[in-house]
């Protein structure tokens, strides 16, 4: 046991995030049931599954914005709560419209002191922190550009910087690479992975396409049709596993370092016209 500055005792290997017997559903529909999973320091967990399988609801649960029907969700040894500033959250890539009166540095500053009431005057230490964060996500060159004039990839780098502002103990990412080109997909996922490697911050990464992060993923949680499978990519991304999970023949094809899943029922993959997920 190690004593920490805040007086609590916790074992070094104690999971940062721990779900036990967690269940969530809306009306008759069960999203997931009896979900038990631990995420430890330094781990990269990818959460996969078709639309509507409860990936985002899982993140909302961890953020304390969604109550479980049963079971527990604990972060850092305590029940999850709303607005826990030790969790960094990177949302779905949603383009900030032009004309938003905010510069790149202001977006990051919101992560530093955006929760604080009072006159909108930043302290010198906060300005330095914003400069450091801008540099760490490679955004110094466009620090004073209005965010609305930046590309989706540039905006998403800023959101990573914003999430890192609170020195998070856990990073939650909700499809952060959606609609980015390959180069920006790599850039943004490397920023997230670097935080994990350098600070041991575990990552829960919701995505419909595992390929951009395949080399970083330690474990996969695959949600589909009210059930789930959990394990290493090699354990989960297999034809027989996904066939059983979906209840219909599904092929997992590995080609050129990529994983492609073919045969997922159309009804559950609204954004893929051919029933194919680029897994």
């Amino acid at each position, binding site marked *: 046991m190690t004593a920490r500055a805040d007086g609590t005792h916790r074992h070094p290997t104690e999971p940062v995030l721990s779900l036990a017997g967690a269940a969530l559903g809306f009306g008759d529909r069960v999203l997931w049931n009896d979900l038990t999973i631990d995420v430890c320091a330094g781990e990269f967990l990818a959460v996969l599954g078709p639309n509507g399988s409860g990936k985002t609801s899982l993140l909302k649960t961890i953020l304390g914005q969604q109550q479980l029907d049963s079971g527990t969700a604990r972060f850092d040894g305590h029940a999850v709560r709303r607005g826990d500033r030790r969790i960094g959250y990177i949302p779905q890539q949603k383009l900030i419209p032009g004309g*938003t009166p905010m510069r790149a540095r202001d977006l990051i500053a919101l992560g530093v002191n955006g*929760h604080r009431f009072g006159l909108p005057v930043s302290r010198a230490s906060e300005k330095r922190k914003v400069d450091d964060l801008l540099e760490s996500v490679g955004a110094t060159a466009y620090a004073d550009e209005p965010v609305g004039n930046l590309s989706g990839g540039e905006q998403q780098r800023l959101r990573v910087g914003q999430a890192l502002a609170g020195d998070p103990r856990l990073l939650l990412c909700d499809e952060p690479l959606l609609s980015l080109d390959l180069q920006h997909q790599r850039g943004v996922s490397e920023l997230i992975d670097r935080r994990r490697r350098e600070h041991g911050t575990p990552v829960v990464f919701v995505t419909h396409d595992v390929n951009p992060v395949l080399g970083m993923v330690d474990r996969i949680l695959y949600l589909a049709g009210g059930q789930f499978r959990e394990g290493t990519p090699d354990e989960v991304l297999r034809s027989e596993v996904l066939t059983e999970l979906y209840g219909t023949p599904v092929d997992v094809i590995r080609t050129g370092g990529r994983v492609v899943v073919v045969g997922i029922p159309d009804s559950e993959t609204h954004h893929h016209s051919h029933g194919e997920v680029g897994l």
Partner: protein
Amino acid sequence: MITLDELWARMFNFENYGELLALVQNSLIAGAILGIVGGLIGVFVMQRDMAFAVHGISELSFAGAAAALLFGVNVVAGSLAGALVAAILIGVLGSRARDRNSIIGVLMPFGLGLGILFLALYPGRSGNKFGLLTGQIISVDDPQLAWLTGISIVVLAGLLCMWRPLSFDSLDADVAAARGVPTRFVSLAFMVLLGLIVAVSVQIIGALLVMALLVTPAAAALRLSASPLWVPVLAMLFGLVSAVGGILLALGGSLPISPYITTISFVIYLGARVIGLRTKPRAGLR
């Protein structure tokens, strides 16, 4: 048939201007502060996509004021009550944009209809009746003007105090909530501030024209800059120029002040659009 000279004389008349000016000193102060605060809150109205809400709140504020007129109670209090009820209803029921617009669409004609009913029942001077719809600052008495000024200052202080959480919530409510911003409180508090300033505007430029001070100045500012400092500063300046300029121009003529305010505010917006045509707004000033 009105001749051009007569038309001009009715619109602009600067005889005895000094004496008139002294009489409306308090109106000018109230108008100036409303212009400044209206421009400032407009920046958030634009970011939160709430121009329609402003209009909806002002119609219920009008109904409240008309009811107060009919029952012989304080018109500012009636205006405030109507605006706050509308603002809170819209805030509580319409957290999502689509819900919000449908709720406003339902509330607005109801409010306007109630207001027209109360006015039709009111036996007093007709000047008071139309004043609520089209502006009547000159006929507002001094104690009420003091109230309007005080309320505007409260709104200004409220906005400055919650500037950062409100900016965060306006940009991305999900992330703001995850970062510990009490988003529900912030949204509702914003609606209350908006309700307060709308009630003040209804008294000064009238329910139908509130957007000329709460939307247009900020929209013009956003055409010229994307700076978190310059957009609010320009919006406040444009609001101030529109409100004070409108009152000053209207002073000698026999017409209501609101067409002067709306025209100045519109011309500023046109100018900003023309200047803003050339390039995208930058973080500085051009």
